[in-house]
């Protein structure tokens, strides 16, 4: 299926905005993406299999948070950056 990727992820795909990958679920799709583009999965989901706070995954234009969401071969998947990101508090000292 066709997977559209946000610009921050395109350094993994040699600049490609959309790639082909397969999976019976979002979780499987992410594993397939990581096999093709090593390292990409951990930038999207954390070690507890949660979609990162400032990332969004849409399946046929519907936002999903559950990686067990099932997929069909003709589904349209978009992995996008949330509008909330980019101004995070990371690395502020205390």
């Amino acid at each position: 299926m066709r997977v559209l990727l946000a610009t921050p992820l395109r350094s993994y795909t040699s600049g490609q905005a959309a790639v082909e990958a397969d999976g019976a679920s979002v979780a499987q799709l992410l594993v397939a993406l990581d096999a093709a583009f090593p390292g990409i999965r951990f930038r999207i989901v954390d070690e507890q299999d949660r979609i990162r706070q400032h990332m969004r995954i849409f399946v046929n234009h519907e936002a999903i948070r559950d990686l067990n969401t099932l997929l069909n071969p003709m589904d349209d998947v978009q992995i996008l950056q949330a509008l909330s990101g980019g101004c995070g508090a990371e690395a502020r000292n205390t």
Partner: protein
Amino acid sequence: MKGTSKTKNRRAAGKTRRAVSAGKQRKPPRRHLKTRLRARTVADDVTLLVGTRKGVWFLHGDARRASWSVEGPQFLGHIINHVVLDPRDRRTIVMAAKTGHLGPTIYTSTDCGKSWVESKRPPAFSKQADGQSARAVSHTFWLTPGHETEPAVWWAGTSPPGLFRSSDHGATWESIDGWNENPMYPKWVPADSGTPDGALLNQIVIDPRDAAHLYIATSTAGVFESIDKGRSWKPLNRGVEANFLPDPYPEYGQDAHCLGLCPQRPDRLYQQNHCGIYRIDRPDDAWERIGKNMPAEVGDIGFGIIAHPRDPDTAWVFPMDGTMVWPRTSPDGRPAAYRTSDAGRSWQRQDRGLPRQQGWFTVKRQAFCCDTQQPLGLYFGTTGGELWMSSNEGGTWKQIAAHLPEIYSVSAVTMA
């Protein structure tokens, strides 16, 4: 940034260059350690590795440290918490990175920063059955090269407070369960603890005499010591105030901003804490608040502290305003470093060349450092993107760069 192609990574990085204890006395340092730490001549060029909220810059000094050329940015737009050269080969650089959207990662360069390879397995906590409430690494905050007898080893500290170790120059990282899964972890890192950016394991210090002897600094529990390479930990906070807790002198719960171990006397450590400046001489287990000797109008609050690499009695701090609502800016808008040359019994203000007024600097802990030259060079970066240096141990200061993004870390190195 994908790490399979060095050439591509170099291009993608957008590189440009333009001018502008354990309670026992330990043995003294071995002879080869002394050799390694001897003063470098000024003929050795100093490079500053500058991590910012928006990428990495290198500044190259000439042999006299009089003029500097700026190289970069690399990884424009990436949040770079720490970028550190490996002193064991002076070629390998490891960098902690993330972006505003993407999760955290680590990059390693083995050619002095010309190309980078992404970690195959960045620091990450163990997968828990109840994943929804379990910890996940928000970002790696601190990197430390391993002991000189462990050439490929690196250590990383994260937020939430996690300790990780790599034995392959940062390619893969393993959890140090002696800390991360310690039964006391929920006490040392309470679930509701945190600072404006969340709780931190913000520093790792290795005893140059003993690879198994570690200190860590945390924002939720203070300083801890391990004598078994991280398998077990004990708090080391006696005498250190935590004025934000009901018991102001608890066993743990302090906010240790920064440690400075004296290489020529590794039993001496300085500490810049959320509640003052301290010194400890092991095997003592109590810290002495040497910040009480700072001018009262300046106080003894700050982020960073530098221990002189050759003189255990000398250290520097860069005070900030920790009064009222904690502006974290230079007290009274008059930035200055303060130097002690008698182990904290007295302090001398060093502000020549710095703004005399309206200088509201904030200098983060990784952004205050020294080189190893003779005389020693001191460096700091500000949250306003300015870089300042002194080539005479703080006697005079000059600005060497401005208009950079918010500076998170500066390290002064001599690359191979």
